[in-house]
């Protein structure tokens, strides 16, 4: 085939001519180093190519060879527990090849070619199959059984299928003359096919109180976490990866810190997933394109991750994907756009920023998967956003908020006062709230949404009451209003705050969330009654049981009877106080 010739090098962008045989979005090999690149624009025979490795030392006259294939990922057994870079090169293999620094021009296959997997067929010779039908299974890890699906584009009669030990490239079945292996290749920029989308209604349980109770995200839904630096975006993303009740987690470190990925690599294998009882790493795929790694691969990392997520969704799993941070991806877009000398939009971002952001989040959803068994799978996408100076009016935040359904707004003032997670309960929202309420009320506890509404209205009232206090002092408030302030404070400190680094507090089941809320609000009700019977707010504030309420977050998941103890103690203490008061009055 005709080889292209480089005519220009400008950082990660190169131009080459003689490229008329290549297709837009083809992957190419650049120069002597065989750097990996992707064609992002074609004009007659001239291609603009973004290169996924450093281009130092590359110059005009050198060759470009197209692979004829778009940027794709390999999908198959062996991805779980792996850490890949933005273009799915396995980082552990790269470490073996080039040591602590990533050299240029090195590569390794994403799926281990020599590893042997046990394939158990579930279809039989003679079955008529079409794309998405399940041929059999491979136990990929302790907790996940990978389903070998008929790849898109293949259909007909199964002529051969056999149980056995296979390598990923071996044929496990023949369908109308076509061999099927355990690997599927899929171009990352195109969503994988499904039958149809379904409305997301089931909550993704995350074990994080402020999220599950107040701003839930549905399985198959979308959420964004914008916040200034240090406000807790990464900690929340890690918490979701650790505790969310998704079958599969895809975690993308996109243009962020190397040490954060190391942290994940150290911690996740040690964590026991409450949903499976096994190590968390058994269900996690990591993508790391840290900020010092080439910027073009950062742009690709988001798509690599989401395509892997879709693959597990297609098997009928619930997948949760975290991308930290989508702003770095948008900046990579901006950088390439600038080098292409495109017309800049707001703050230099390309005019198509909004549509790219939308395309990405649109790949989330609950779907009826391809295949005749009508299974459903879901892909939830949760993106961190890093607005410059914490200013939410900037383009990336704005285009994200136009598309996502949940907004967890992190607040500098809260993180500054060490209120974590620093999710602002007055400005955040979840558009899944009603659906999730219905689901929880029907399936878990019918009083849950009432508790939540009561708590939220107290928190909202707190703000206006505090305004008054700031102007004229606390004493002018009625006892009822002072009690509202007291309860709102308790909601903030004893419920909304949650320490990610405490062994117990880090995860809180919905059952425990409900009991905690109930206690705080029961206290409030008793206190109201007490006030009517003449108790002073000061006395109520000093009640001994309040100390136990502040410590209830540390009650382990298997000792819920303690909540009942606290309630009994609370009622007794109120009775005594009221009795004393009545005795004094008499």
């Amino acid at each position, binding site marked *: 085939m005709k080889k292209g010739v480089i005519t220009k090098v*400008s950082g990660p962008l190169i131009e080459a001519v003689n490229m008329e045989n290549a297709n837009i979005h083809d992957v190419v090999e650049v120069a002597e180093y065989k750097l990996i690149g992707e064609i992002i624009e074609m004009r007659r025979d001239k291609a603009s190519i973004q290169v996924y490795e450093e281009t130092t030392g*590359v110059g005009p*006259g050198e060759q470009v060879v197209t692979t004829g294939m778009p940027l794709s990922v390999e999908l198959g057994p062996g991805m779980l527990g792996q850490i890949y870079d933005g273009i799915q090169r396995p*980082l552990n293999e790269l470490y073996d090849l080039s040591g602590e*620094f990533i050299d240029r021009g090195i590569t390794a296959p994403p799926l281990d070619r020599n590893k042997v997997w046990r394939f158990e067929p579930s279809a039989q010779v003679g079955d008529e199959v079409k794309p998405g039908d399940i041929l059999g299974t491979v136990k990929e890890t302790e907790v996940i059984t990978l389903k070998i699906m008929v790849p898109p584009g293949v259909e007909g009669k199964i002529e051969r299928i056999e149980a056995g030990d296979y390598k990923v490239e071996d044929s496990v079945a023949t369908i109308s003359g076509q061999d099927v292996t355990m690997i599927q290749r899929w171009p990352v920029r195109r969503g994988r096919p499904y039958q149809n989308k379904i409305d997301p209604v089931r909550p993704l349980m995350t074990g994080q109180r402020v999220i599950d109770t107040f701003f839930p995200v549905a399985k198959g839904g979308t959420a964004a976490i914008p916040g200034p*630096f240090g406000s807790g975006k990464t900690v929340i993303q890690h918490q979701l990866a650790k505790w969310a009740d998704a079958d599969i987690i895809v975690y993308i470190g996109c243009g962020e810190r190397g040490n954060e*990925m190391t942290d994940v*690599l150290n911690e996740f294998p040690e964590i026991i997933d409450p949903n499976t009882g096994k190590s968390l790493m058994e269900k996690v795929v990591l993508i790391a394109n840290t900020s010092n790694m080439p910027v073009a691969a950062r742009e690709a990392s988001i798509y690599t991750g989401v395509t892997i997520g879709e693959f597990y969704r297609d098997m009928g799993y619930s997948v949760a994907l975290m991308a930290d941070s989508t702003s770095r991806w948008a900046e990579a877009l901006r950088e390439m756009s600038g080098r292409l000398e495109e017309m800049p939009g707001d703050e230099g971002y390309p005019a198509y920023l909004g549509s790219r952001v939308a395309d990405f989040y649109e790949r989330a959803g609950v779907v009826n998967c391809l295949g005749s068994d009508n299974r459903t799978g879901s892909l939830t996408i949760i993106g961190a956003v890093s607005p410059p100076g914490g200013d939410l009016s900037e383009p990336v935040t704005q285009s994200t908020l136009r598309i996502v359904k949940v907004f967890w707004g992190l607040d500098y003032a809260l993180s500054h006062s060490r209120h974590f997670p620093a999710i602002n309960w007055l400005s955040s929202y979840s558009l899944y709230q009603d659906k999730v309420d219905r689901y929880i009320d029907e399936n878990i506890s019918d009083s849950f949404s009432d508790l939540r509404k009561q708590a939220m209205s107290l928190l909202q009232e707190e703000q206006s009451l505090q305004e008054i206090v700031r102007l004229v002092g606390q004493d002018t408030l009625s006892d009822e209003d002072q009690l509202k302030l007291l309860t709102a404070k308790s909601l903030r400190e004893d419920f909304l705050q949650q320490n990610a680094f405490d062994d117990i507090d880090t995860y809180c089941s919905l059952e425990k969330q409900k009991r905690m809320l109930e206690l705080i609000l029961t206290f409030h009700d008793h206190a109201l009654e007490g006030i009517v019977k003449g108790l002073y707010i000061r006395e109520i504030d000093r009640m001994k049981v309040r100390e136990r309420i502040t410590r209830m977050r540390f009650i382990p998941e298997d000792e819920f009877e303690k909540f009942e103890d606290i309630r009994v103690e609370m009622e007794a203490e109120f009775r005594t106080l009221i009795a004393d008061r009545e005795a004094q009055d008499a």
Partner: protein
Amino acid sequence: MLKEYQTVTEITGPLMLVTDVSGVKYEELVEIQMQTGEKRRGKVLEVGTDNALVQLFEGSDGINMKNTKVRFLGKPQELGVSPDMIGRVFDGMGNPIDNGPQIIADERRDINGLPINPFARLYPSEFIQTGVSAIDGLNTLVRGQKLPIFSGSGLPHNQLAAQIARQAQVLGTDEKFAVIFAAMGITFEEAEFFINDFRESGAIDRAVLFINLANDPTIERVSTPRMALTAAEYLAFDEGMHVLVILTDMTNYADALREVSSARKEVPGRRGYPGYLYTDLSQIYERAGRVKGKAGSITQIPILTMPEDDITHPIPDLTGYITEGQIILSREIYNRNINPPINVLPSLSRLKDKGIGEGKTRKDHANTMNQIYAGVARGRDAKELSTILGESALSDDDLAFARYSDAFDERYVNQGFYTDRTIIETLDLGWDLLKILPREELKRISDALLDEFLGKVD
């Protein structure tokens, strides 16, 4: 023989366009010989089929388009590395300026380095004692961390940086230790201050200095931190040393980058800085760390002055998005004659938790850290309230917190630049201060620790 071109056709700011060239590579180093015989250097920013855009490190002043000769040197900008760099002073481009001999390099390395594979990293967890209580006690630094100092013009960040360079040590080890100091656009006096300080304390014998002064070529500054970090990587990962890198002032660095960008007529981002400032800064800051199988480490303390003390300015903002916390100096505290004027409330070391506790510092460290911090926050609030409503509006507890917060500033923070406190002294001082508060207010410290450190109450 390298080809020589006399085809400079355009000069704008620090950029030069050379036409009719062939065989030029991206990032290639360029040598320019002026009509006067003076030699300058540059690097290729962009290259087309027959032209190359060159960034001139020493600027374009006095260059005559017709009589200037240009040679492309066939390699990127490099630094010759060797253990002999230690104890030496270089300019911002890596040439010795201390009248010592030329360095005989073991190896020449591309100053841009290569990205560390995240799989190869070791999580930073070894406590570095800086001898500064506000850092060691509350914002603990660990080996392999990048922890910047956010300062303002006129604040004593240099004194603090020199103090850290002088005092920093890892307890219970006698491992090889080096300081690399990179100055970008600081004044002669500031540079002299560091050099003298290093001389007096003997730190110079384990230091490597790269100095680009305010009156040195601006564009050279873009290379200086990369020179320093190339030396650091060599000493850390080839020579097994623990290297502390001080980069000052990152604001001047970013301004130089902005100058190049605007000469290229790139679409400016916030406040005229290029859109890739985040990526560029992270390629500097992410060169800190520890890696598997290597004894050494690179710890970075970048210093930057926040224009107008504004933390949302792009330079501190993007730095904060990359580094692992920040130490913030405050003008208000400085004006109260408290030195070093560290404002502990907005300061944070994100890696502190893995570096403290039993076996690293002391078992009471985490608890007291949180309590001291919470106490200062409450004390400051109480003081604010008393300025509005008068002291009589404060409860007894609040009064205690207000007194505590004053004592904290006075005794804990205000140690001066020449007091070197052990972590034990810092922790004990913390307990001394906490005694000002009613014991039942020490809610963040476990009863067992309270009993042990304050004595049992009956």
